[in-house]
């Protein structure tokens, strides 16, 4: 059993603090995705779990054991790097076997493990090749294989798919997820791609500028973002955020438009951000009660749907509509379903 617990972990380089107290509890077998914009400290956090970076303060444990001062090789982890970090002068077989040889396993044991991993990853035909004779996807698999043969308690991934083309990325996403489930290991996966995060994670950790913005299942992150950052970072196209004034009695005033109805249980009064996902609104061609006019500026055709770039009052507003719905030609009106409305405090960025 290998739960991972990260307690109040901070990291400084010199006098610059890049992680400001991270707390994450990861259960055995969970697939955790750490997502955030580049430079927010994802890799640093992962590398601290791996033991490649020292922990400035706080505590990291794997299983029951505090590992702050444990060497990477003794942490029962394996890591897959962004550019694979395969040993260029070794065959695929030796790339996978190298760590096992250093563990002083017997020849037969090494053979069995490498063969099993090669079979799992369909690498049997390439065992004698050098990494440079492999395609990107195959190298990616070898990197996975090198992690698998160690039989670790925790898999660590640092943007492992970012060097692959889109099609291969989708395929590997599914494979990694399947492997992790089959092998029943805990996984921590770092990415800046919110689609990867949404599709792969059991739980997502959204990191921003060295702070945890929110931890939750993909559905929680998507439907109840705790902050403006999470709301706008997760989801494509991002959530509409319209500034205005809440009166605390179910009305929200948008400049250039007027009042719109929001749920009565928002008691907050003052400047606020009104948020709604582009795909959660309802579109009509005629004005009716509780609908508001949109001014259409541009249509993006996606095949499976369309994105309408519009104006709501003085604010830009995007709408995502399924391809089955007709595009209204004369007049565009929008309704905001009550349960899809979010309100944020523009000062703290927090959810109201």
């Amino acid at each position: 059993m290998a739960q991972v617990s990260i307690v109040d972990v901070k990291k400084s380089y010199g006098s610059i603090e890049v992680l400001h107290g991270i707390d994450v509890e990861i259960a055995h077998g969970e697939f955790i995705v750490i997502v955030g914009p580049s430079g927010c400290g994802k890799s640093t956090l992962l590398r601290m779990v791996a033991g490649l970076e020292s922990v400035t303060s706080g505590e990291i444990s794997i299983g029951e054991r505090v590992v702050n001062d444990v060497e990477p090789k003794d942490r029962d982890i394996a890591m897959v790097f962004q550019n694979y970090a395969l040993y260029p002068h070794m065959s695929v077989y030796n790339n996978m076997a190298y760590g096992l040889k250093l563990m002083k396993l017997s020849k037969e044991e090494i053979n069995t493990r490498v063969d099993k991993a090669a079979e799992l990853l369909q690498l049997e035909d390439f065992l004698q090749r050098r990494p440079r004779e492999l395609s990107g996807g195959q190298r990616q698999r070898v990197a996975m294989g090198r992690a698998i043969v160690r039989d670790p308690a925790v898999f660590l991934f640092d943007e492992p798919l970012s060097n692959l083309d889109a099609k291969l990325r989708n395929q590997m996403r599914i494979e990694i997820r399947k492997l992790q489930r089959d092998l029943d290991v805990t996984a921590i996966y770092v990415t800046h791609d919110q689609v990867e995060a949404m599709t792969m994670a059991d739980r997502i950790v959204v990191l921003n500028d060295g702070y945890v913005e929110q931890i939750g299942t993909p559905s929680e992150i998507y439907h109840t973002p705790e902050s403006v950052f999470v709301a706008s970072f997760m989801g494509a196209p991002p959530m509409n955020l319209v500034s205005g004034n809440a009166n605390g009695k179910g009305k929200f005033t948008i400049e250039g438009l007027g009042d719109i109805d929001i749920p009565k249980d928002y008691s907050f009064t003052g400047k606020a951000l009104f948020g709604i996902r582009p795909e959660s609104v309802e579109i009509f061609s005629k004005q009716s009660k509780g609908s508001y006019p949109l001014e259409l500026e541009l249509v993006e055709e996606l095949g499976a749907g369309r994105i309408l770039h519009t104006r709501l009052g003085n604010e830009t507003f995007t709408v995502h509509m399924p391809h089955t719905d007709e595009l209204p030609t004369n007049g565009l009106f929008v309704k905001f379903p009550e349960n899809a409305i979010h309100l944020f405090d523009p000062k703290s960025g927090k959810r109201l």
Partner: protein
Amino acid sequence: MIENRPIVSIVSHIVLIIGVLIVGFPVWITFVAASHDALRMTQAPIPLWPGPYFFDNLKDALFVGLGGSGSQSAGLMLFNSFVMAMVIALGKISVSLLSAFAIVYFKFPFRMGFFWMIFLTLMLPVEVRILPTFEVVANLGMLNSFSGLTLPLIASATATFMFRQTFLTVPDELLEAARIDGAGPMRFFFDILLPMSRTNIAALFVILFIYGWNQYLWPLLITTDQSMVTIVMGIKEMLEAGESLQQWNRIMMTTLLAMLPPVLVVVGMQKLFVKGLTETEK
């Protein structure tokens, strides 16, 4: 540049052929001189075509030398030169590999200071520091020995610098992957860094072997004992060994022999050499 006009290709060939002739002519004369008897070589005009005594001269030069007192056979001189060149080349490579490894991969006080100190020695080749170096070697009792011949030439800023650049191109993630795999620093050095620098090492070996082989001034200074004579300085001494007429045939044969090992090294390692100097992918 790809040009297909015949005139361009004819002209460039002529230029190249002239170049080859200019370089090749002295070598040809050396070969010709090494194939005549001693008498013929003292008569004008000197011959331009090979004579019948090549193998006799080869035997004499290899095993007898000039034959007078205080002269050495080319065999012994070749051996001395070979040991010197090998020790210098391998010594330089090992020392520079380790110092580059230390400078790139370890954090220690004054790291960059040490690097620049090594770098500064680029400005101090043996010729510049020859007197103090001689003094040190003499005081250590290393005159007339292989250690005296080689040690002062082994420290190498160029090679250290080159290996440093090579190591800097090795991605950090490789070191991290090796750490996770359980490799300590020396394992990483031997299992990963060294094989990855293979072609660079080969290229450097070629350059350094020739550098060591061609050493002239330093061996001349510190070897007085005839049994330690190297072939490059030996040739010069043969010219001065004049009780009688110079035996050009044997001197030229010795010269031919002196050229041979560097040529063999270059030809034998040509592929690796070019790869080591041009390869950038890691």
